[in-house]
Each structure stands twice: as C-alpha cells, then as structure tokens.
C-alpha cells in the first residue's frame, strides 16, 4: 500500500475549521460558534475524490507566539509539523466576514512555507454570510495580490467545496505523496510576529474584503441589548433559569412515554417465562435495573439541545463575558463559563474544554470544580429521589413546578459549592500557577441550524447510554445475582448482597439510610448513574410479587424519609463517583496527586455534608 497524501488545516479560532474538516472527512467533530472549541489535533481520512488523503486539523491560532505554557506546547507541535513533516497541501481557513487576521496568518504562513515549497490554498469560509449582507469579496483581486489561490466556500451549506476538492487534487498532483523526511527545522526567526505583515493584511482586507461596518452593524446592535448593563444581566439570568427548568419540565412527556414502554415491555417479556429465576431476572435485572436508568435519558437529551442552541447562536460567548466579573471573584474567569456549562452535561468533555481557558491558574481551578457541577449522570439520581420525595405541585398557572424548583436548587447548590471551593483553592494551592488576563473575541450572532443540533444531541445521548449502559448492565446483573442467591428465592436478607449490605450499614446509618442504599452508593462509585439501576434491582427483587412498578413509587412506600432523601441528594451532589472523570483530571493536569486528591476530598466532603443535612432535616 502506497503512502497517503496529507492535507493540513490551519486558521484563526472560530473560522469554521472543524466544520470544514467534517465535510472533508465525513466525521462528526464537535463544532460550535465559540472560539477555541477544537482543543486537540484531529486526523481523519478524506472522503470521495480525496479518499487517498489524510486530513489533519490543528487548533486555531492567532499567531505563532504563545501566551501560556500550554499554548506554547500546541504551537511548538505545529511548528514542528510545518518544519519536519511534508504536507501535500495546506488549507489556510479564514472567515470571509473578518479577513484581517486571517490574511495576516495566511501571509505569515506563505512566508514560512515558501521554505518547504508546500502549496497553500486560502479557503475563505462563511461566504454565505457576506452574500447575505449584500457585500462583496473580490476573490480574483485578492488571489492576484497574494499570489495564492483563494476559494470562497461555505462549510455550512457546502458551497464551493467541489472547486476546493479539485484544487487540492491539482495542487498535489505534481508532488510525490508525503513522506517522513529527515527533520530540518526551519529558522526560528521565521515564526516571529512581523508587524509589516499585519499592516499589509489590514490593507488587503480593506481593499478586497467586505465593509466591516456593514457586516458588524446588526451584531453590534444586538450586543447593545444582550450585553447592556441591566437588561443584559436579566436576559442572562432568565436564560439560565429557562435552561434548568426546561430539563425537568420539557422532558416529562418523553420520560412518561419511555416509562410506559419499559413497563409494558417488561410485563410482556416476563409473560414468556414460567415463574422462577428466569422470569425474575428479566423482570428485575433487565427491565427493573437497566430500564430505570433509561427513563432519564430525555433529560440529558434536552440539556444537550439547549446547550447546542446557545453555542451555535453566539450567545455563549456573550454569557462568558457577562459571567467574567462574578466568576473572577472566585478566582475563575469568563472563559471558565463554557467548560462549566458543559460540565452540566458531562464532566469529561468539559474538563477537556477547559484548555480554552488561557490562564493556567484559572484552567487548573476550572478543572477542579467541574466535577461539582450537576452532570447528566446525576440527573437519574436526582430525578428518582425528587419524584419519590417532592410532591408534584405547581405555581404561576402551572408554569413553575415544585419538583423543577428543587432541581434548580440542586444545580445552584453544586454551583455555589464549586465557587466556594475555587475561591479557597485560588487563595492557597493554586498560587503557583501563572495567570493571564481576560480577552475574548465576540463571534457573530447566527441562527442555529436545528437539524445538526438535534442530530448531535441524539448522537451524544446515544453515546452516553452506550458508555454508561454497559457498566450499568454489568453492575445490575451482578447485583441481581448477589441479591438472588445463594438460596435462589429472592430473599434479600439472606443473600450474599444482604450480608455485604448489613456489614457496611453502620457507615451510612448516620445519614438515616438502610443497607440497600449503602449497597447502591458503594456500587455507584465507578459511575454514579449505577445508583438507580442498583436500587431498581434491589427493590425489584423485594417487590417481585407486585411485578414492575415505578421505582419512585416503590421508594416512596419503602419508608425513605425526607431527611435521608435530602442527605442522599446532597451526597450525590458532591461526591466524585465517576472513574472516567478522575482519569481525565489526571490526564489534563498531568498530576496523579490532583486526581486522587479531588476524589478523596469530594468523597469525604459529600459524606460530612450528607450527615449534616440528615441532622438538619431530621
């Protein structure tokens, strides 16, 4: 098999490189209208007439000069790639609506790559927005002035892609496929920022590009509303309230539907078996355990949709600006806002997204506090306990529900605790980390495309179910076996699990919890969502005669008190019960001390706060 050809994608942050990469490779890399969304080098095989190519997408950069140590690593990687690897074509992507910095990077790249004679194609993305603003981009004039091919494209709707693909083939046709050559580092002086290049780019942009005042007019008008003193603050608070209320209220019909489906499927499946262990296994382990987790997936789906909508609209960058001042009081930055908001969906990508926080100190703090935010894995636990403990009362003509308010309270509790922890650590152990000031580019406002958001949210929800479902299935089956045997009668008290549960009961009795909850907590230390499946299996075993019924109803009738329920909620709001999160903290901080420290500290804090909560409510 011959060597494959290589395409390298470079450009400023938020110019649509990831969308371009996805269109060329058919992959589904995360895209958003927020600078710095790509945090690592991505690679994928080209599609269609580029199937002989590998496409490499580098994180966006403003110049070859780093502001922090982490950025330095990323830029050094790119410099090494440009110096030592031979790329067949470099695609320099720029935003057609704001050409200045894109052209500056393109001119700089042209100078660097003239040393290796690597062909560059200048991809002027977002041409649809220039057309919509009734402005012009003089493609021919710009191409002549730069002595480079310029292709106007829209990575959003695919305009110009055919021509771009042809040009890639043309440019690489005369070259032998890329081969690893003996490293011959380029002169370091070539990468220095050169003001004359920037001045030249400004001149070219004004001469050949669209009029920025016309393009920015609408965005600046909208910013006068969304970022204005009082009104902007109110919109921000209302948006956040809507987000959290929607997770609980909007997902209700879907959750009810799934619950009905699981109940009827469970009863139907069980009817195929004669009474005995087989029937009990299907009823309790499969539909009682795994089914009780699936009921909560709609909440996760709604959360992903809303975050996707806010990201694509450009509002998240504004929210980051509004939240900068309040967050900075706790040692964080406005740039921490997006990773923290993502933390409400899942801590793992959120911790990785913290790479967009350019200050090493604030990045470290952001990583440490993300596990305290209510991730989607906590939703099944909260949903179950709230449904079991809090009555379904409504106010304001049914718009605000009591259960939704308790939900919001738990989110706020996690957030408040995260801020307090950050404030304390920023004054103590984070002092050794260097700091950089806050600057962020405002992306344009855009109408989000509903279809990609729905597809992406569905994909993420399925991936969550796939990832967590495997663990939950294994744990619930093991729990069922331990709870059903050795006597095979389903008598929990004399089962293996009963014996383990009774042995650890004294640990959880200060929170007023019986041994079954102790077992559920213990089994959920790998992944917290296992809690619901375990309880489903445990109470399914006990309620086997009544067939499957709603787990919340079973818990309600089992004697779980409000004090114990609140203690459990607080425990789950704080404890770091996610092995993958611990692993990603270790990877991102490159410190096992930080990862283990966070795990131990949050577990102890969760226990202490759980006991205090029980005593307050008792």
């Amino acid at each position, binding site marked *: 098999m011959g060597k494959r050809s290589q395409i390298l994608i470079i450009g400023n942050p938020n110019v649509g490189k990831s969308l371009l990469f996805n269109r060329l490779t058919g992959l589904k890399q995360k895209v958003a209208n927020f600078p710095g969304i790509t945090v690592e080098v991505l690679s994928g095989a080209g599609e269609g007439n580029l199937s002989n190519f590998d496409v490499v997408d580098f994180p966006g950069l403003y110049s070859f000069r780093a502001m922090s140590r982490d950025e330095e690593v990323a830029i050094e990687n790119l410099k090494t790639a440009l110096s030592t690897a031979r790329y067949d074509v470099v695609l320099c992507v720029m935003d057609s609506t704001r050409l200045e910095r894109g052209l500056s990077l393109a001119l700089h790249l042209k100078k660097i790559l003239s040393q290796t004679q690597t062909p560059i194609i200048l991809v002027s993305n977002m041409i649809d927005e220039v057309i919509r603003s009734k402005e012009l981009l003089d493609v021919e004039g710009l191409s002549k002035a730069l002595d480079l091919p310029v292709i106007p494209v829209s990575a959003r709707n695919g305009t110009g892609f055919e021509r771009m693909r042809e040009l890639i083939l043309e440019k690489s046709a005369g070259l032998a496929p890329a081969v690893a050559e003996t490293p011959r580092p380029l002169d370091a002086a070539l990468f220095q920022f050169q003001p004359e290049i920037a001045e030249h780019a400004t001149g070219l942009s004004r001469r050949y590009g669209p009029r920025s005042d016309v393009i920015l007019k609408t965005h*600046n008008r909208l910013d006068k509303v969304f970022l204005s003193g009082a009104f902007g603050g109110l919109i921000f608070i209302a948006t956040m309230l809507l987000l959290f209320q929607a997770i609980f209220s909007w997902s209700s019909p879907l959750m009810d539907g799934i619950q009905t489906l699981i109940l009827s499927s469970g009863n139907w499946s069980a009817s195929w078996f004669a009474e005995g262990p087989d029937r009990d296994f299907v009823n309790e382990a499969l539909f009682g355990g795994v089914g009780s987790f699936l009921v909560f997936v709609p909440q996760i789906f709604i959360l992903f949709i809303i975050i996707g909508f806010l990201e694509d609209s450009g509002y998240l960058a504004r929210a980051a600006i509004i939240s900068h001042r309040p967050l900075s009081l706790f040692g964080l930055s406005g740039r921490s806002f997006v990773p923290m908001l993502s933390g409400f969906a899942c801590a793992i990508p959120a911790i990785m997204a913290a790479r967009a926080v350019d200050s090493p100190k604030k990045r470290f703090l952001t990583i440490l506090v993300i596990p305290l935010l209510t991730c989607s894995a906590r939703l099944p636990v909260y949903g179950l306990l709230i449904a079991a403990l809090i009555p379904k009362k409504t106010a304001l003509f049914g718009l605000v529900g009591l259960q939704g308010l308790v939900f919001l309270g738990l989110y706020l509790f996690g957030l408040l605790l995260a801020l307090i922890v950050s404030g304390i650590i920023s004054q103590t152990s984070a002092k050794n980390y260097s700091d950089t000031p806050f600057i962020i580019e405002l992306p344009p406002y855009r109408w989000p495309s509903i279809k990609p958001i729905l597809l992406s949210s569905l994909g993420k929800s399925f991936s969550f179910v796939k990832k967590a479902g495997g663990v939950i299935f294994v744990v619930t089956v093991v729990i069922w076996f331990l709870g059903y045997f050795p006597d095979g009668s389903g008598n929990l008290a004399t089962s293996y699990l009963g014996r383990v549960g009774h042995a650890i009961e004294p640990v959880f009795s200060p929170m007023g919890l019986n041994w079954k909850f102790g077992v559920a907590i213990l089994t959920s230390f790998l992944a917290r969502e296992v809690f619901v499946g375990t309880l489903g299996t445990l109470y399914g075993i006990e309620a086997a005669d009544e067939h499957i019924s709603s787990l919340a109803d079973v818990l309600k009738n089992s004697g779980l008190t409000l004090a114990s329920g609140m203690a459990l909620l607080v425990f789950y709001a704080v404890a770091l019960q996610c092995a993958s999160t611990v692993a990603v903290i270790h990877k991102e901080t490159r410190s096992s001390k930080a990862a283990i420290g966070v795990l131990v500290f949050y577990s102890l804090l969760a226990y202490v706060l759980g006991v205090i909560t029980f005593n307050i409510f008792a």
Partner: protein
Amino acid sequence: MRIIIIMGDLWTLKVNQVAVVSGFSTSMTEAFQGRLSALGFRSGQKVFCLGETPFGGPRIFQIGDSVFSLARDLARGIAVETLEMQS
C-alpha cells in the same frame, strides 16, 4: 477652538468614543504585547468602545473588522490617544 490630544488607556474610553492605539504599558509582558498586536491592537490602529457589560465586567471594543471584550487589567495596559475640542 483648538484640538488637543488626550493620552490615556483603553479603559478610560467612554461608550461610542473612538481612539487611536499608541502603545503598551511597560508593565505588560512581551507575550501579551505580541498577542494583542496579532489581534490588531497595534500603534496607529483606530479602536472604538462599543459598550460596557453587566456587573462591571469587561468592556467591548471594535478594532478593524473584529470585536473583542477586554477585562479591566488588560485594557489598562493599552495606551490610547483621543482628540478633544477645547474652546
């Protein structure tokens, strides 16, 4: 009537006021100066203050064809000149 040049920093700009960047504070590190230059904050460039944000947060500035939000500590490090009419 005469026109006078007022020297200040970016944070002193009022909303809707235009200024010209004249340099950086000596306390600003070279790395920050480099980044700001790459973003367009270079001597002689026109900068426009678009607005303030809630809770006394960062302010919004347009430079060239881009809009940025800068926190107080960074904006204080960018020297600007404004023109004023004095009778």
